């Protein structure tokens, strides 16, 4: 699943960049993340729960790594998760651009959901992924604001 989108933050670029280095805020950007902790450098680990309608049991142990860091312009986020419902594997290239005093985030994420259960719930999970990424960024925006 490919998600390409953009989001205009209220804050300026430096503030957004700094905020995203905080695992708590970074976690908000990822749909369904219940917990995210730094385990070293730019590596984070936590739990993501994707819950929608009939799907209430998609719980993933996730790891998040930020690489290709070009402060405050760009980074790549690599997400891996494994749970009973299957696995998620994702990679997002993120660019932050200045828009006056605000910051425009452009991102292109490639997300793979896999596994037996995923094969049944995947249409749901896909839709959730699309909808929730936007919600996640709104939450981040509020936190920075």
């Amino acid at each position: 699943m490919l998600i390409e989108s953009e989001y205009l933050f209220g804050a300026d670029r430096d503030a957004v960049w700094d905020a995203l280095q905080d695992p708590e805020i970074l976690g908000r950007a990822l749909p369904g993340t219940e917990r995210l902790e730094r385990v070293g450098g730019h590596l984070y680990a936590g739990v993501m729960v994707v819950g929608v309608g009939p799907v209430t049991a998609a719980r993933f142990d996730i790891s998040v790594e930020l690489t290709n860091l070009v402060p405050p312009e760009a980074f790549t986020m690599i997400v891996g998760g494994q749970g009973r419902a299957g696995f998620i594997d994702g990679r997002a290239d993120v660019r932050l651009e200045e828009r006056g005093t605000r910051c425009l985030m452009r991102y292109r994420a490639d997300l793979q959901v896999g596994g037996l259960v995923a094969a049944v719930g995947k249409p749901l999970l896909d839709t959730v992924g699309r909808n929730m990424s936007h919600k996640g960024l709104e939450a981040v925006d509020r936190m920075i604001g």
Partner: protein
Amino acid sequence: MKPAPFDYVRPDSIEGAIDALREGGPGAKALAGGQSLIPALNFRLAQPSLLVDLAGVDALRGIRSDEDGGLTIGAMTRQRTVERSDVAGERAPLVSETMALVAHPQIRNRGTLGGSLAHADPAAELPAAMLALDAVFRLHGPAGSRRVPARDFYIGLFETVLAPDELLVEIEIPAPPPGSRFAIEEVSRRHGDFALAGVAIALTPADDGSISDAAIGLFGVGDRPILSTAGNAVLRGRSLDAAAIAEAAEATADALDPPGDIHASPAYRRHLVRVLTRRALERANEARETRDRGG
């Protein structure tokens, strides 16, 4: 494909059910007809810790004619019961017509009206019909009752305004203004399948025969049932001629940004909305003309 373990209670009152849900915490889940929930349990996509079976609550069942010409249906009334109900057929013909499109008799024999509405599957027929009919849902929670218009009830994919310890209790379908016409059209892969796209329409005429309101409920084309306003804007104040119908269908489709999946691309879904809106409007119109002619 066997469910993970859970506990089970069958309270006999609304209050009892709400207490059970509250005490059960986030793992508690209400069980209505179970025709969507139990498949999810079998796939282990859902793993509630407690199921609160509403089947023991008599107060949630029944179909009642209201004095103002409307109809009130208890949330746990089986879909089949609604389908067979003469009073429902008379007072809410769109609901009866819609029921026949919902899955198969074996499902409707267990499935409940409220269960389907609260499940909020965006491809389901009944929620969209409720939008078209401007139904009102009565919810009951620890703090008491509230009435929420169907049009405000759906907020996202399988997402409603229902709180975790709140129940959908009754569905109130207002009496349609005299001369109202209804139609529902859908395209599904097979008989009884969820729709690739569908349109449920309630038309309210003005005294001069023009359209005073065209409520167009869409299903299968978004993350929730959609009340299309674009078609209504075109039709309001106009008579339902071929040009108006075509324009309304076009506007309804153009305003949409439907999702794609393995069964239908966004372009196909949008196209279907155009076709089905037109067909539904035509059919509603024909029904009226026949009735007019027949006196």
